[in-house]
C-alpha cells in the first residue's frame, strides 16, 4: 500500500524548474530518504507536499486521496506533519507549550469549557499533557519542560520539532535535515529514535538529509534529486554505487 505518491509533480518559478516531473511512491511504514546536492529542490519538494506551494503540474496522492489542491492546514489534519530546515519553534514559549500546540486538533473542548473549567477541559488538558510528557521523555527533553524553546541547545531544538510532528498521531512525517548541526553520537541517537517512533507509532517517514551516514544507515529506500529531477532511486547500497549519483555529488572525473 502506498502512503504517498506523486505523479509527474513539477513546480516552475519562471524559467527555473525547481522540481520537474518527479514520480515518487512511498510505501506505508517506509523510512524513505530524499537526498541531493544543495539546491536540488528537496525542500521545495517538501513545500509541495505540505501545500506551501501549488504545483505547476502533476498530482499528489496521500493515502489514496488526491490532495493536490488541499490547503496546508487540512493536509496537516489529514496527518502530514513536517519539520523545518531552519528550525521554526515557538521560541518564546516553553518546551511543553510547543508540544501542546501541536496537539490542538485532538482537543475538542470549546471556549465555554475554558470559562467553566469543567471536566471536559480538565480531562482533555490532562491527556494532552501526558502525551507531551511521554514524548518529551522519549526524546530525553523532560528536564527542559519549562524552559523557553529558544533557549534550548541546537540539537534539542531539532528534537523538539520532531516531537511537535508526533503529537497528534500523524501518518506521514517529513523531516527536513533532522540531524543538521548534531554531532556523531547525537546523530546516532537520533537515528535510533526515528526508527523507534516509526515502529511504535506506525509512521511513514520521509526525510531530507545531508548526513550520508544517517541516510545510508537508516533509510530503506532512497531517492536522489538533482536540479529538480529524480536521477535515481533504490536501496541505499544501489544508490551509492549509481554513477549518476556520484557525478551529481562529486562531479565527473577529470580526463587525465
Amino acid at each position, binding site marked *: 500500500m502506498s502512503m504517498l505518491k506523486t505523479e509527474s509533480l513539477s513546480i516552475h518559478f519562471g524559467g527555473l524548474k525547481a522540481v520537474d516531473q518527479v514520480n515518487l511512491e512511498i510505501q506505508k511504514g517506509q523510512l524513505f530518504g530524499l537526498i541531493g546536492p544543495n539546491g536540488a529542490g528537496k525542500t521545495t519538494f517538501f513545500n509541495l507536499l505540505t501545500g506551501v506551494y501549488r504545483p505547476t503540474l502533476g498530482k499528489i496522492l496521500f493515502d489514496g486521496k488526491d490532495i493536490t489542491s488541499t490547503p496546508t492546514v487540512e493536509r496537516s489534519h489529514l496527518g502530514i506533519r513536517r519539520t523545518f530546515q531552519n528550525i521554526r519553534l*515557538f521560541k*518564546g*514559549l516553553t518546551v511543553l507549550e510547543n508540544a501542546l*500546540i501541536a496537539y*490542538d486538533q485532538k482537543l475538542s473542548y470549546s471556549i465555554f469549557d475554558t*470559562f467553566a*473549567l469543567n471536566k471536559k477541559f480538565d480531562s482533555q488538558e490532562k491527556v494532552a499533557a501526558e502525551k507531551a510528557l511521554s514524548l518529551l521523555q522519549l526524546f530525553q527533553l523532560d528536564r527542559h519542560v519549562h524552559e523557553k524553546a529558544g533557549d534550548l541547545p541546537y540539537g534539542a531544538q531539532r528534537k523538539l520539532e520532531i516531537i511537535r510532528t508526533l503529537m497528534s498521531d500523524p501518518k506521514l512525517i517529513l523531516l527536513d535535515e533532522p540531524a543538521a548541526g548534531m554531532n556523531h553520537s547525537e546523530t546516532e541517537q537520533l537515528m535510533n529514535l526515528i526508527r523507534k517512533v516509526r515502529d511504535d507509532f506506525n509512521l511513514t517517514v520521509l526525510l531530507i538529509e545531508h548526513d550520508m551516514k544517517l541516510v545510508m544507515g537508516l533509510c530503506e529506500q532512497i531517492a536522489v534529486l538533482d536540479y529538480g529531477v529524480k536521477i535515481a532511486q533504490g536501496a541505499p547500497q544501489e544508490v551509492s554505487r549509481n554513477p549518476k549519483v556520484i557525478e551529481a555529488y562529486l562531479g565527473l572525473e577529470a580526463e587525465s
Partner: protein
Amino acid sequence: MRAFKIPLLTFIALLLLGVVLQFSVNAYIQILILQILMFGIASMSLNLVNGFTGQFSLGHAGFMAVGAYTSAYLSQVFPGFLEHTHLLGFFLFSLAAGCMAAVFGYLVGLPSLRLKGDYLAIVTLGFGEILRVILLNIEPLGAARGISGIVPYPELGFLDRFWVSFAYVSFWFLICFFSLWRITRGRFGRQFLSVREDEVAALSLGLSTTKIKVRSFVIAAFFAGISGSIYAHLISIITPTIFGFMMSVNIVVMVVLGGMGSFTGSIVAAAFMTIMPELLRSLQSVTGVDLRMVIFSLSLILIMIFRPTGLFGELEFSDVIKKWKRKNA
C-alpha cells in the same frame, strides 16, 4: 463550582471595597476609580490582540465608540425600560453593545487580519477614523453634538449611586479579567501565542491562523464595546471626537506600558495612565506653568527605557510575587 469560587470571592471583596470607598474618598476620586476599571477592561482586551496574538491594532477606541453609541442610543429609545428593570436593563444594553462591537470586530478583522505588522496598524487606525467621521454625520446619533444626558447608573434604595456604579463596573471588569485569563490558559491561548510566535509553523501544525486572529479580534472588540457602554453611562455624554485616535493610542500605551501579554500589567498601567495626569494637575499650583503633559510623557519614556518590556513584561502579578518570594527565600 471551582470555576466560580475565586471570581465570586473577588466580586464580594470588591463590593466591600466599594462600601469603604463610598465613605472614605470624595466624588472626584470615585469617578477616577470607575474610569480605571473601565480603561482596565479596554486595555486588557486589547492586550489579547496586541500582546497575545501579536497583531498590532490601533483602532480599539473605534470599538469602544460602537459600544458607547449602541448603549446610549438604546437607553434613549427605551428610557422606560431602564427604569423598570434597573441594573438588568443596563446589563442587557451593555451586552448588546458588546455584541455590536464584536460584529464590527468580525467585519473589520476578516479582511484586514490577512495583513501584517504596520499594514494592520494602518488599517485599524483607518477604521477608527472612518467610524469617527461617519458618526459625525449621522443625525439620529446626534452628529457632532453626540448624545448627551445618557441615563446614569441608578441609586437602588439606600444604595448610593457610586456604589451601584462601582458594583456594576466591577462585575464586568471581573467577567472580562477572568474570561481573558482562562481563554489564554487553555488551547485557545496557545493558539493565539502560536500565531504571535510563528505563523508558518502554526499553519503546518494545522492551525488556521486567520480564524485564530479573527477570534482574538472579536473577543477584544466585544469587551471594548462593553467598556464603551460603561463609558457612556458613567460620563453621560459622548461625542465622536472622544473616541478618536488619541484614545486608541492611550489604550495601546497602557498595553505596552503594562507589558504585552500581561493582563494584570494592563490593569496597573490603566491605573497609572488615569491617575498620573490627575496627580500632576496639583503640580501646576507649584510650578505656575502647565508641565503636566511634559512630565507625564517623560515618565512614560523613562519607564520604557528602564523597562523595555513594560512594567510586568509577560508576567502576571501572581508570577511577579512568586518570583520575588523565590528570590527572598
